[in-house]
């Protein structure tokens, strides 16, 4: 697998303030790459640089080995956080227009648009104006507009915000389909569960710097397991007295036990088995949410 979109030591200053401080990552063909960060961490600036809206002060961004140019524009698709379509223009017209601007022929665009409309079960909106659609449907149309010209590099900024669960699933499937077709997708969101589900690699930005980067599984291994989920058929008492246990929550028969040391897991299980019948025992790996809060939150202390 080759990396199609590569950022190397990219730095951007706005006056005195450094907005993005030497970040590097690469997105492979057929990969969804997660870009996470709190508000104001530099995500938007990074995306804008990838989109060629602004140029980095230092470092390089290459697209399939080439620097940014009008050829690259045709390879890139972009779904902004706010839908980004003409409110008063027919759906079909503006999507075909945007596809043509990216160098696609009119008939091709038309065909591809129909394919996606069908996929999203939105054929009845073909001749409607954007302002007539619900927010969720507008989002779907925005997504189609971003992918209709078959981009090799797709940038999704908060793609699933404001969607109901059914539509989130629909869009997730679409994103996965594009990934399987070989697109390189840069995916930014605040919803950690989406990243966990879709991405293999990620970068977490905080105050313009990279704080965490790499394979999600590797990252998780690097963080201590701190929670035990325990389900039993009867009540278990005295768990909080075991060394290493820092807290016990939950009702009888289902406990969430916080531990400071993974070594405390075995005594907890033994104790539980002694008192009752264990139906479920899991030393939980940290969720991305917890990792995010720890790596970003600690620095904010």
């Amino acid at each position: 697998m080759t990396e199609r979109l590569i950022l190397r030591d990219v730095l951007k200053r706005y006056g005195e303030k450094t907005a993005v401080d030497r970040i590097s990552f690469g997105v492979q063909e057929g990969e969804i790459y997660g870009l996470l960060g709190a508000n104001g961490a530099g995500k938007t600036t990074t995306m804008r640089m990838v989109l060629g809206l602004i140029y980095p002060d230092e470092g390089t961004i290459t697209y399939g080995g080439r620097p940014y140019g009008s050829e690259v524009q045709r390879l890139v698709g972009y779904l902004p956080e706010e839908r980004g379509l003409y409110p008063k223009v027919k759906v079909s017209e503006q999507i075909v227009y945007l596809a043509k601007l990216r160098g696609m022929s009119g008939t091709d665009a038309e065909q591809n648009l129909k394919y996606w409309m069908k996929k999203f079960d939105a054929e009845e909106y073909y001749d409607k104006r954007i302002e007539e659609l619900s927010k969720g449907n507008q989002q779907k149309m925005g997504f189609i507009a971003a992918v209709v010209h078959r981009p090799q590099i797709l940038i999704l900024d908060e793609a699933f915000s404001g969607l109901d669960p059914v539509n989130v699933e629909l869009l997730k499937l679409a994103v996965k389909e594009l990934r399987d077709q070989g697109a390189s997708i840069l995916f930014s969101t605040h919803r950690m569960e989406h990243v966990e589900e879709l991405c293999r690699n990620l970068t977490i930005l905080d105050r313009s710097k990279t704080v965490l980067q790499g394979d999600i599984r590797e990252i998780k291994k690097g963080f201590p397991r701190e929670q035990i989920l325990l389900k039993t058929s009867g009540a278990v008492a005295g768990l909080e007295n075991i060394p290493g246990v820092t807290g016990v929550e939950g009702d009888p028969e289902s406990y969430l036990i916080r531990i400071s040391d993974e070594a405390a897991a075995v005594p907890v299980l033994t104790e539980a088995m002694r008192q009752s019948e264990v139906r479920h025992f899991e030393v939980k790996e940290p969720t991305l949410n917890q990792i995010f809060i720890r790596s970003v939150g600690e620095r904010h202390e």
Partner: protein
Amino acid sequence: MNRLGTVIGFTFKNKVRTKSFVITTLLLALLITIGIHLPFIIQMFVGDDEGGDNRIGIAANGQTEIAQQIEDYVSALPGNEIQFADLEGGDAAALNKQAKDQDLKGYLTIAPSEGAAFPAVEYVSENGSVPADVQAVLQPALESAKTRFITEGALSDEQIRQLTTPVQLSTVSYDQLAGTGEQNADGPEGDKFNPMNFITVYVLMTLFFFSAMLTGNMIASEVTSEKSSRVMEILITSVSPLTQMFGKVIGVFLVGLLQIGVFGLTIAINLMLPYNREVLAGFDLDFSQMPFDVLAYGLVFYVLGYFLYALLYAAVGSIVSRTEDLGQAVTPLTMLSLAAFYIGIFSLNNTDSLLMKISSFVPFTSPTTMIARIGLGEIAFWEIAVSLALLLASIFFFGWLSAKIYRTGVLMYGKRPSMKELRKAMKAYKI
């Protein structure tokens, strides 16, 4: 280039199909139609009023000679429509009754003469006023009668005619007098005082002003709405801002042309209608005298001037985030186009003033003032060339600047940035 075409096509198609465009175009076309029919409509009413009776009574009170002279003078006028009826009796009630019975427009009473003085003459009518057309006939008639009365036959008819003809003051320039202005040999006043020249200049100026204002605002609000709906973020990653801006400007320009075309067609069709043709013939306009050189220059300046303003309007539109703030932001440009318009209009009779000379070289005002100077004043070819070159240069300069502002402006949301902030942002974005 291909993408430029796409942008132009999209802008044009969407603008033309908006309800507001269709409605304003149709409404204005209707207004033009009514305007052109106005003389005809007025004539229709006036014609009814006359009802074949354009008769005026004369109560001579013994001054039959004066009465006769008035009648003779009036009936000798070419195309005269006024007829006279002699009224008898001296008392007002009787005269009024006669006038009403005979359905007269009004009547003249000539007072009995006192000595050698010309008697007082009064026009009596229903509403106590004299219609302009009647006055225009009666005034010289009375003057002629008065001259005759005073000279008592000492002057011949020819002498009297000479006396009553006003003196003509004709104008000639130094050059023409010295014979150097040969190109105007076809008449002492040349073709500069051809009314068609005046009309062409006037129409071109007005057209320019309205196009610059209306289409400029159209462009600015287009850009702002693209920005506020965030389509801009997608557009700017697809097409270079220069292509985008020019596509928009040209697209809206074509919309403007279409509108002008519709109006032109409306005017042409209306003028072709036979009854209108007759009425307009009365205005003494000769369309074959259309000054095509002025028209050609005018169109060149029109198009270039339009682009200069349109590019700036696009730039202004790009720095505003909300349509509500747009009005305030475009005010300087509106002022500029107003200045161009008024300098031109108020100097139509004085095209060689210093103000006109200076402003015909200033790119923002030259589209109107240069036309006036070409059409109504004396101008050397090099002046036109220099003015055109300056206009072109400023289009390139402001096009470049606008593209930069546009590129920066579309990324700046929130409150309208000041010039300083804009410059800082340009630097930061490395544009």
